[in-house]
């Protein structure tokens, strides 16, 4: 009896192990460019491969993502790679360069190399917290902790509250809208007409914000949307020059008493408008507004990594959400959230549609879960974190 049981057990064990091994190997994602060239990488707005290998999971298709882009092949950059500081506040992809705002200067990644610009080069301040560029002129606008810089063909020009009509030197956000530059500062929002060189300032004195501390600004659909700390979202109609605001109907209550009744919270950190949708990040969740209806998202009932959101950026139908516990991406239906494990370089991508969740291990993953900036273009996703910047490639 014992001998038969041992044989039987062995067979079962071997069969189970084989099955487990097959299942495990089936989860190893493999991604290869179908043409075998670097064409896609070069056209995506980031430099060609720098020769370093990555070992993230590869897959040729992720049906669970339902069309949402999933990024892998993560490459992380820190001071060891040439960044001036590991504290990265913002990132922007401009042409074939990637600009990263750090605590110690502006870092530019081009042709596989980092180059840093500081106050010695004419930058207003080494703490660079926001970057945007003008499609009309190619000028790069840089918001810093002490002033605004325009970077044009290699030359920095500084604007501050003393030498210009700029509202305040603490420039949290810059946004280019045609010939206008919008800024969100610690002393109000401002719009600079680059043709007439005139500043318009919006503060609690002339706009429905209860204090002038503004974190973010963006435009879309003929309107500007200012994220006013504690003031919700201030909407400015560019044509009629009239304001209205969107605030949390629940007031100062930290719970969402009535779901989807309006903006999710008044402490807003960023706005981004794309494809007819206004996305708003707050310290207590995220909101989506289609012009008529609001929808709120929390970490407990959605794929949102965390309610505490530093920043978000919408690119086409996808919003990229920077929280203090990972990066979430969402297209209105499906979430893909990237989180690094507590130890080591590995992490995962969590794909969630409704209650359906799928986790994809990645090694390496993003460099840190405290995320402050993001930009995506074509096949690349760049993430600014508290420990360097991470670059992910679209998994096909």
């Amino acid at each position, binding site marked *: 009896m014992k001998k038969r049981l041992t044989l039987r057990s062995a067979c079962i064990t071997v069969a189970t192990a084989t099955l487990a091994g097959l299942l495990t190997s089936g989860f190893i994602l493999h991604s290869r460019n179908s043409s075998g060239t670097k064409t896609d990488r070069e056209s995506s707005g980031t430099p060609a491969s720098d020769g370093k290998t990555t070992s993230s999971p590869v897959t040729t298709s992720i049906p669970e993502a339902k069309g949402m882009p999933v990024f892998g092949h993560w490459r992380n950059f820190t001071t060891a790679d040439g960044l001036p500081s590991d504290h990265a506040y913002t990132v922007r992809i401009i042409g074939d360069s990637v600009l990263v705002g750090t605590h110690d200067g502006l870092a530019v990644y081009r042709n596989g190399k980092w180059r840093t610009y500081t106050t010695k080069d004419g930058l207003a301040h080494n703490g660079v917290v926001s970057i945007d560029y003008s499609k*009309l*002129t*190619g*000028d790069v606008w840089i918001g810093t902790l002490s002033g605004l810089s*325009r970077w*044009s*063909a*290699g*030359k920095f*020009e500084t604007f501050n*509250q*003393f*030498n*210009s*009509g700029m*509202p*305040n030197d603490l420039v949290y956000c810059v946004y280019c809208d045609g*010939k206008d530059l919008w800024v969100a500062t610690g*002393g*109000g929002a401002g719009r600079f007409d*680059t*043709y*007439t*060189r*005139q*500043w318009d*300032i919006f*503060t609690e*004195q*002339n706009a429905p914000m209860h204090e002038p501390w503004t974190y973010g600004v963006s435009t879309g659909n003929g309107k500007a949307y200012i994220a006013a700390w504690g003031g919700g979202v201030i909407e400015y109609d560019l044509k009629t020059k009239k304001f209205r605001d969107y605030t949390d109907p629940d007031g100062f209550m930290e719970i969402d008493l009535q779901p989807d009744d309006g903006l999710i919270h008044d402490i807003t950190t960023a706005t981004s408008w794309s494809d007819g949708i206004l996305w708003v990040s707050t310290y207590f969740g995220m909101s989506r507004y289609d012009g008529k209806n609001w929808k709120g998202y929390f970490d407990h009932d959605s794929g949102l990594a965390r309610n505490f959101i530093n920043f978000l950026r919408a690119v086409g139908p996808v919003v990229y959400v920077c929280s203090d516990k990972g990066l979430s991406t969402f297209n209105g239906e499906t979430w893909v959230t990237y989180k690094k494990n507590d130890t080591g370089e590995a992490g995962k991508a969590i794909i969630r549609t409704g209650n359906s969740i799928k986790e994809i291990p990645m090694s390496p993953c993003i460099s840190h879960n405290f995320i402050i900036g993001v930009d995506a273009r074509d096949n690349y996703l760049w993430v600014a974190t508290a420990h360097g910047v991470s670059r992910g490639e679209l998994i096909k």
Partner: protein
Amino acid sequence: MKRILKISIITGVLLIAGYIVHFPYHKWARKHVNYITATDDHPLNCISCHLYLQKDNLLARMVNRKYYSPLNLAVSDDGSMLFVSAQDAGMLLVVDPAANKVLKRIKVGNHPHSVAVDSDKKICYVTNQWSDDVSVVSLETGKVTDTLRTGNGPAGLALSPDRKRLFVVNSFSNNFSVFDLDSKEEVSRLSAGNNPTGIHFSPDGKSAWITSRRALIAPYGTPVMTELTKVDAAAQAVSEHRNIESAYMMENVAFTPTGDLALFSLIRPKNLVPSIQVERGWMMTHGFGVIEQKPGGRCVQLLIDEPNAYYPDPFGIAVTPDGKKAFISSSGVDCITVISIDSVRSILNTVPPETVATYANNLGISSRYVLKRIHTGANPKGIVLSPDGKSLYVAEQLEDRISVINTDKLEVAGIIDLGGPRKISVARHGRRLLNNAGHTFQNEYSCYTCHPDTHEDGLVYNMASKDMGRNITNTQSLRDIAETAPFKWNGLNQTVYKQDGMRFSTVLTRTEPFSSKDLDALTSYIMTGIPNPPDLEFNPNGELTDAQKRGKAIFERTRDFKGNEIPVVNRCVTCHPAPYYTNRKSADVGTLAATDDSILFDTPHLNNVIFSPPYLHDGRASTLEEIWTVYGQTEQHGALNDLTKTQLNDLIEYLKSLRDPAYNKESGRIYRASLSN
């Protein structure tokens, strides 16, 4: 007998009466003229002042004339036509150089500046610097067929090589516009330097350089730096902002035919040293810059001056089609300087770079490459070569004619009279004096050099008097100053006569003073003939914006925002009342520097103040904002510390709207024709 007696008595009575009246009157007149002129020997000639200082009444119209004052010109592709911007007449003149004849006089906008011609389409484009537009002129009909709105102060312009785009340099708003000529729409506007003016495409059409006149604003003591802006023609974007050190007033640029070199005119000011010495170029030197058009190419500065003779105010620059010669108009001494490009290349290719770098300060170098000086009429400005390179056409602005120079023989071969008035009015003579360096030591500079376009050059100088290094002062504008006496920052010159009289020759020209006749003429021009451009960007028609209205209320307020009464002496409007925004008194506004003698400063007028940075007597404030954000802490310069940033911005917007009162008289009209003197 009785009749003779009567006549004798009457005559005697008249003589006695005249005797009684004459001497006191003569004494009074002498005293009056002495005060006005600050001399004791100026002729007692009532007419020289009282007639020729009339500004815009019947008398003024009788004694003055309307001149053309050609500034720039272009030539058709086949060389058969010249197109001349007549700045004071507001016209485009179409000239047949072979027939020596003006064919058409076409009314364009206000103060036309430059011309570009599309020979294929038979269209001329003319920038109107004081209309903020470009006139599109059909050469077939001789009419303006379209008008393109530009930025502020359009000056130089250039057609892209494919003739599909027009690049227009906006000299007052420090940017340039790119127009799509199919849609006639402005497609972009990009920043470029400070007071940019000239533009020229490289022969391959891939890039263009834009020159700037004013230096980048920096604290006094910082070496002067002026920008050359490079434009990527295909991308329609700025590809380089190159700072040219120790140079400014870079009026125009040209390329060699092969495109390997770009040449631009320049002036090298010595504003950082006290103006003790003029000899050896210690005030100003003049020359041209050369930029090698290869990656990492050098920029070299070379002088056209000589050790004992200077050639100030270089303006136009042109290079012959064979690339052998360059011509520069030295408008301050009425001549064209001819440069050998081969000699310049030899210097660049054979002299060690560290040695070449010293040539910018070497007055003895010009003999290596200056072939000749060709004398012209008064104030040669824009120049253009015929397509075959055999003729150089020179716009003699204060002569109302075009001189034609044979580029082989290097001599004037002909003159084209544009048909301006034959008579040179007193004010016109004064204008010639202002633009000519003949009254300065070795012709080193003219009034125009520090007061380009009779404005100011944006620099701060140490006009040394008895103490070196003291009393640093900001150049002031000469535009419409007749009603704003006294003059000079210390307010010690009560008239222009005194400003430009003996003191002028002692401190500035270092030669004999102007003769009485010349001084009268110069004063006549300054007092009557220098209008301000309209403030089209901030106050085109007298209607203030909401922000400007709020700013005006702040400017005129008597109480601060806390309800406290502002002392009368500390209200803006007390020292700066309309229409010239000066009470013509001196005041202490808390800006006395350690290097200043203990004085009060003359209240400056504020018309067109937006065009005059930097600010305050020593130029310490780079922008209007800084007058109060950085330098207004003591509230001696107006009680404004209760303002929020928004309110300060409103006040600044109002200050930007302050324009010449002459435009307020014609508030129904947007544009105002130039006085023509």
